[in-house]
């Protein structure tokens, strides 16, 4: 027995690249939303760790040496891509894990199958603010986009652990069914507010507003990543009044003081919506996140 154990340990040490049939796939994700998708599809056959949590701004995560260890032991790494999570790169490079390096079997850029919005077509530079070269990266905020993300994840999990393909595909189909009925419910809830004009703090919500037929007429940030100036605030207040905007959406980590001042001067209401799983208590899964956001937004637009 002892010898068998030693042999198993040796095999585990010598063949770290192989995922044995009885092993769980180790998956590391850049964000908590991706981790939730992996959990949904992978079930108890995967062990998932997210490198960031929902209360953090995914643009600005400081890579920590301890995160290297999560990436080092991962069979699969799932990232947002589109330059939102550039910080992941230094972790991948420090990990010495060929499986999750670009081109490796476990590397997955979840944006691959997404129809991107706001892809710049001309020259871009920092005078335009923090513009992303490959388009607006907040694509998971359209629940329909969860489908291609899940599709990429299930494909990757099946490739990495073929013996569990049936299990992964079953979970995937089941999740899609739940997601479809949830989307139908959310669309129904948002139907009365189609065409409503809103303001957002950062340009994070175009995928969300496109899905639920809302119109963004301005942002608190004059350009992505640029803090609001007094003159911008004055013109935004004027615009909110003119366009009869009821709601200003902001993420929990942005400057509430400035947004509340704009709301007070314009008569609009600030609605704090988490953009990611875990960003607020109760939004612990992707489905709960939308449940919370749709409920909160519909309630605010109704008033």
């Amino acid at each position: 027995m002892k010898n068998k154990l030693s042999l198993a340990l040796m095999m585990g040490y010598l063949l770290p690249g192989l995922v044995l049939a009885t092993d769980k796939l180790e998956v590391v994700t850049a964000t908590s939303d991706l981790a939730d998708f992996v959990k949904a599809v992978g079930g108890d056959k995967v062990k998932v760790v997210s490198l960031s949590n929902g209360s953090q701004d995914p643009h600005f995560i400081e890579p920590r040496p301890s995160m290297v260890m999560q990436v080092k032991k991962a069979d699969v790494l799932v990232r947002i891509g589109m330059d939102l999570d550039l910080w992941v790169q230094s972790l991948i490079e420090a990990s010495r894990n060929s499986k999750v390096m670009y081109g490796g079997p476990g590397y997955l850029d979840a944006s691959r199958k997404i129809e991107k919005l706001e892809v710049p077509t001309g020259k871009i530079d920092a005078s335009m603010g923090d513009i992303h070269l490959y388009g607006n990266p907040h694509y998971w905020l359209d629940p329909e986009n969860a489908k291609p993300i899940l599709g990429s994840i299930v494909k990757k999990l099946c490739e990495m652990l073929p013996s569990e393909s049936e299990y992964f595909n079953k979970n995937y189909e089941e999740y899609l069914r739940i997601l479809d009925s949830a989307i139908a419910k959310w669309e129904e809830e948002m139907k009365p507010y189609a065409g409503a004009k809103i303001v957002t703090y950062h340009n994070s919500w175009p995928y969300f507003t496109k899905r639920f037929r809302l119109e963004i007429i301005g942002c608190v940030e004059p350009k992505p990543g640029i803090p609001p100036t007094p003159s911008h605030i004055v013109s935004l207040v004027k615009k909110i009044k003119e366009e009869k905007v009821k709601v200003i959406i902001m993420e929990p980590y942005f400057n509430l003081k400035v947004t509340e001042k704009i709301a007070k001067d314009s008569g609009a209401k600030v609605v704090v919506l988490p953009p990611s799983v875990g960003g607020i208590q109760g939004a612990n899964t992707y489905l709960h996140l939308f449940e919370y956001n749709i409920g909160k937004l519909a309630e605010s637009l109704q008033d």
Partner: protein
Amino acid sequence: MCNHSSVIFILSFFLSSLVSAQEGTKATPLPGMRGTPSNLPDISVIGDITGKVTSDKNDLNRNKILVREIELALQGYIYPEMRADVFLAMHRHGDHFEPEICEAYASFLKIVGGLSLKVGKMHVDFGKINKVHQHERPYVDQPLVLTNFFGNHGLVGEGVSLGYLLPLPFFAQIDASAWRVASEQHHEEGVEEPEEFGLADEVYTTRLWTSFSLGETSELEIGASGASGKGSHYLEHQDEARVFGLDLTYKLWPSAYKRLAFQNEVLHLIRRTPVGELKRWGFYNYLGFQFNKYWDAGLRYDWSENAFPEKGKTNSFSGIITSHLTETTKIRLQYGYNFELNSHEAFLQLVFGIGPHSHPLQ
């Protein structure tokens, strides 16, 4: 006419292929693969413009706003799991600029197991701050102990560095490196620069770097480093030197944009000369706090003995406030007081960045 039509056709074809390349679904290229046309590396320029006001009338940079350095970075992948990073710089030396290869190295990200390799010219992995480029540091100047033991530009060498990520449940990396460091590499004929000490000739370094996550919001990093070589004026002084260092960094992220950083390094120099052995100490403590996405402030205390036979020590205090416009562009104000010289100094620094610029995990 026919030629015009052909040109228009070719241009339309070229433009349409550009547009089609941007639409639809595709994965995001990595840093180092993002230039356009698509085979260009990431190209960036970092500028460092610094003004200094000081009560020290002997300071050559007194009451001047000067371009300290312009750095051109070319970064990209050269092979699967292999990248090259080149940083060319124009450094100020007195009243003129000197071109320099600041760093130029190829990284084999994985050789076998946890082993990686870097070869070329680079800032040596010694302690926490030596390997960090000036424009990335949270203050305008270099901690005194690094200047006293490694020179104004820190310890930079040409050679090879092996890194091994130890098979432990926590992060622990050991680096072993061999370098050739030019003696008096920044001294130019006719340019008056204060005498400085550093390591030179064949220099061997090692570093053990470990880090522990103390929950989701804090991290403790501990490192030990060692370097052995000759003195930078060894032809004249016939000296050999060893430097040992310990570093400890604690970071706490109480919320999305807030961060507390407490960084400390202590260095011990042993310099053997024909007339005897010198032993010198030095350290710095830095406490920084980021208030929000755009502002941070810090305090640094420096204490260091010199590396020369006539023993002397300097200690100083600095207060720093920085406004971050973007990830690479910032404006910084720093005040410093030197207790030995009873001198005051203030810096105003603008660091600007154009283009995609990245550094490895530091």
